[in-house]
């Protein structure tokens, strides 16, 4: 009894002592805070110290931008092409059966070995030889033979003509990482190899990691000038980078308020606004409204299973689009911080320049037939203005070009036209004003959405609210990602609040849209009830679509004529209203400028702020110390 009491007392005593010690040092001894950039690791490593990023299951939230490298980059902010490990753009022969890659001389692995063509040849061959590795299927499909002609030139013979093979080494988010031959050639089972300690090409090298997976500490290489980022930016960047996972958003906000986090990936608007109030050093892309970075290459949209009545009718989809008030959707559900887009392409500066603005005239003149012989022009140019009015009413400063702020416009909010379109197809309202399907049954829409993708979920709520107001019975089925994808792929849905590639909305900062359209070709089509694996879950099946995709495929990506074809493609998608695109992506990529500054911002948009994308390596070197300690 006494002993137990004593032990208890001792335990209490010790723990009090521990508490009174106050907040433990955030950083390990010898790592000064002012030399360490602390970035959000996004999630926790379930397995630690496995750096084999060439298999599907090794988690890779931030490592690729710090330590790994590939041949080419396209900066999604500026649209700039960056030759990274390669010295020049890819060189194809005339019939696109052979690709020549010129590599930079003067890049070294983190263990001091020189990077050469052998590494590239080895990487391709190694992956080709081992099923289960990422890119294995693609290399097998395309690559006939890979060889080097000299230490800095690689030649790849392709099995069939392919003008886009180099995309496998060109990154927006990631692309095939290059392996150090001198390490991997000794590996017998490349799937199980953990590649630890990693020998890498990036300007940072792993220094320490958490056995529980919450953090990793990287140190700038002493020979950082001998890496691609070093050569291109000629800047050193912070000496240490600590990646750390704090948990849910409220914890990240808490950490940033205490200046224990310098850069984080994304927040919901509530958390972001709280952070602004509590930490005057914190900001995102814009110093003021609309704060967020809106230039990620993706959009939100409402999609329908086009094989389910009545959504197979184009006019019904148009009617649903015209029953939406996009100003309200943006302002009340998203906070008004992103741009609207009527076409399935994100309204980023780069894309607006090539697509949105040039298509404005066409949009203005676009007509839909409401009744026989009666037409309606749905495009509404006043949307940016209305959003600006709303923003001013909230007390936000609105400065600059409204189109750049809010997009070029969207569809008119015209429930009356919707009504006529529906009546045209035999829809009726019952005595309570609720819509009935042509067969007399009540009209009910169930929207599936994943709550963890915050914006699509809030947009689902918005659509539900607005369509309900229009007289349709709508409810939302919230699903986790996995069942959500399964339902989409099986066609087991009516309406989905979604994002990404469907109807060609995904994009790289290149004009070529084939990679984001090809899977809509009818040769990959699978009917509802059958599992489709390529992304056409809306079940688009159209000869016009096929024709345009074929045209794109035949055109090398660099061909200037591409723009015209892509515009035609966007027109087709818009006219047919395969899906209802609404808003551009936005992210509250947030930084704390207490210890560090010169993050990419609207005032200084030197690069995309997504530090977790592979291209983050070209941004980190620009970040400089404020000198605070």
């Amino acid at each position, binding site marked *: 009894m006494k002993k137990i009491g004593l032990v208890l007392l001792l335990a209490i005593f010790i723990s009090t002592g521990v508490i009174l010690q106050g907040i433990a040092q955030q950083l390990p001894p010898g790592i000064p805070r002012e030399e360490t950039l602390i970035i959000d690791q996004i999630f926790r490593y379930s397995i630690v110290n496995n750096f084999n990023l060439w298999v599907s299951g090794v988690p890779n939230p931030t490592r690729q931008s710090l330590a790994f490298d590939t041949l080419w980059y396209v900066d999604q902010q500026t649209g700039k092409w960056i030759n990274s490990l390669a010295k020049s753009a890819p060189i194809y022969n005339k019939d696109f059966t052979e690709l020549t890659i010129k590599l930079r001389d003067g890049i070294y692995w983190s263990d001091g070995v020189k990077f050469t063509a052998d590494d590239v040849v080895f990487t391709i061959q190694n992956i080709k030889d081992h099923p289960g590795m990422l890119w294995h299927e693609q290399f097998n499909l395309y690559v006939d033979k890979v060889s080097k002609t000299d230490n800095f030139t690689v030649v790849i013979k392709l099995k069939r003509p392919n003008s886009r093979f180099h995309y496998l080494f060109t990154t927006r988010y990631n692309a095939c990482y290059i392996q150090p031959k001198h390490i991997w050639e000794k590996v017998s089972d490349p799937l199980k190899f953990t590649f630890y300690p990693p020998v890498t090409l990036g300007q940072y090298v792993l220094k320490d990691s958490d056995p529980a997976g919450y953090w990793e500490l990287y140190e700038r290489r002493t020979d950082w000038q001998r890496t691609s980022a070093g050569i291109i930016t000629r800047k050193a960047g912070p000496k240490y980078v600590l990646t750390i996972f704090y948990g849910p958003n409220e914890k990240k906000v808490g950490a940033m308020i205490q200046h224990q986090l310098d850069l984080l990936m994304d927040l919901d608007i509530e958390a972001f606004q709280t952070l602004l109030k509590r930490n005057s050093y914190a900001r995102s892309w814009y110093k003021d409204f609309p704060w967020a970075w809106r230039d990620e290459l993706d959009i939100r949209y409402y999609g329908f299973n086009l094989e389910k009545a009545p959504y197979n009718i184009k006019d019904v989809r148009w009617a649903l689009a015209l029953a939406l008030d996009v100003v309200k959707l943006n302002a009340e559900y998203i906070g008004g911080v992103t741009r609207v887009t009527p076409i399935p392409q994100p309204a980023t500066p780069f894309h607006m320049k090539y697509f949105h603005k040039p298509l404005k005239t066409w949009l203005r003149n676009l007509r839909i037939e409401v009744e026989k012989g009666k037409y309606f022009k749905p495009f509404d140019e006043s949307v940016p203005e209305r959003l600006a009015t709303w923003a001013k009413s909230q007390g936000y400063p609105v400065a600059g070009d409204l189109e750049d702020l809010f997009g070029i416009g969207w569809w008119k909010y015209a429930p009356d036209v919707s009504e006529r379109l529906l009546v045209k197809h035999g829809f009726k309202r019952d005595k309570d004003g609720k819509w009935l399907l042509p067969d007399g049954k009540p009209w009910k829409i169930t929207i599936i959405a994943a709550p963890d993708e915050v914006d699509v979920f809030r947009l689902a*709520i918005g659509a539900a609210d607005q369509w309900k107001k229009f007289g349709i019975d709508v409810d939302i089925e919230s699903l986790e990602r996995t069942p959500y994808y399964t339902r989409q792929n099986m066609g087991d849905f009516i309406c989905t609040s979604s994002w990404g590639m469907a109807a060609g909305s995904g994009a790289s900062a290149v004009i070529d849209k084939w990679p984001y359209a090809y899977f809509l070709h009818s040769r990959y089509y699978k009917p509802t009830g059958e599992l489709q694996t390529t992304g056409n879950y809306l079940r688009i099946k159209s000869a016009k679509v096929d024709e345009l995709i074929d045209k794109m495929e035949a055109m090398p990506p660099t061909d200037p004529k591409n723009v015209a074809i892509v515009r035609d493609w966007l027109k087709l998608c818009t006219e047919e209203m395969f899906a209802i695109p609404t808003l551009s992506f936005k992210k509250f990529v947030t930084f704390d400028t207490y210890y560090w500054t010169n993050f990419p911002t609207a005032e200084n948009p030197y690069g995309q702020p997504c530090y977790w994308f592979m291209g983050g390596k070209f941004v980190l070197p620009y970040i400089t110390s404020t000198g605070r300690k």
Partner: protein
Amino acid sequence: MGVIRSLLKYDKRFTFGFFIIVFIIFLSILSFFSPYDPSDRYIVPRDRPPNLQYILGTTSLGQDVFWYLTIAIRNSLIIGLISVSLSRLIATTIGLVSGYLGGNVDSILTTLVDSFNVIPRLPILVLISFAFRGYLNFLGIGLLLAFFDWAWPSKRYRSQILSLREREFTNTAIFSGRRTLGIILKEHVPFLLPYIMADFISGFLWAIGMQITLSILGLFNLDIPTIGTMIYWANYYQSILKGTWWWIGSPIVALILTVMSFYFLSVSLSSYLDPRLRVLRVKEKTE
């Protein structure tokens, strides 16, 4: 009625529990008079703190916290009730059969129950609600929760019955030639009843707790307003960070009051119905 009156008068726990429960039930009945449909959003100004018009404030989704809460309480109670009724129905049946019949039936049932008990409960619940969430309506959720909460109680019932059977009065009763059913009804039920009562409430509390857990993970049917989903949505819109404390606070306070009152009631009732204590009371009366 007399019992309730005397409990109310003299057992503080009961008084506390009883009045809160009456209040909670009153709130859930009030839900039928709610001026808003629970699925309506953006119908009142957003993020208003409690005031005279919206006594518990409003949410970031433009809902009136008070009226939403009444519906949430109602639904939580209903789901808990469905779940616990089903699970205790299964549990008592199996426990009774197992305990009284004995023999092979008992060993088969026991093995079944044990196999079920070793399966980790939360992960499977998470798995199922994760995969089938969209299909889970009231009854579905009740069934699901019930399905995972019958095995332990049935084991407990069985052992209660076994220990009752060992007691002397059962033997006496058997010697005196009374029929088994008669024994069970006359001698065992009075002992089992308080036990079942208390267990019923603890099962109810478990069901409510599980609703909360699943909701926090976002694995409940989020479109049914319950106390749990209300907390989920408040969290989703960062109620704590944003300072809309009334949104997350109301369901939490309602929840704590609910579970506490039910628990108090169960403690009070079971001590009132406890045969040991009852014997004591009888003694006190005669002495």
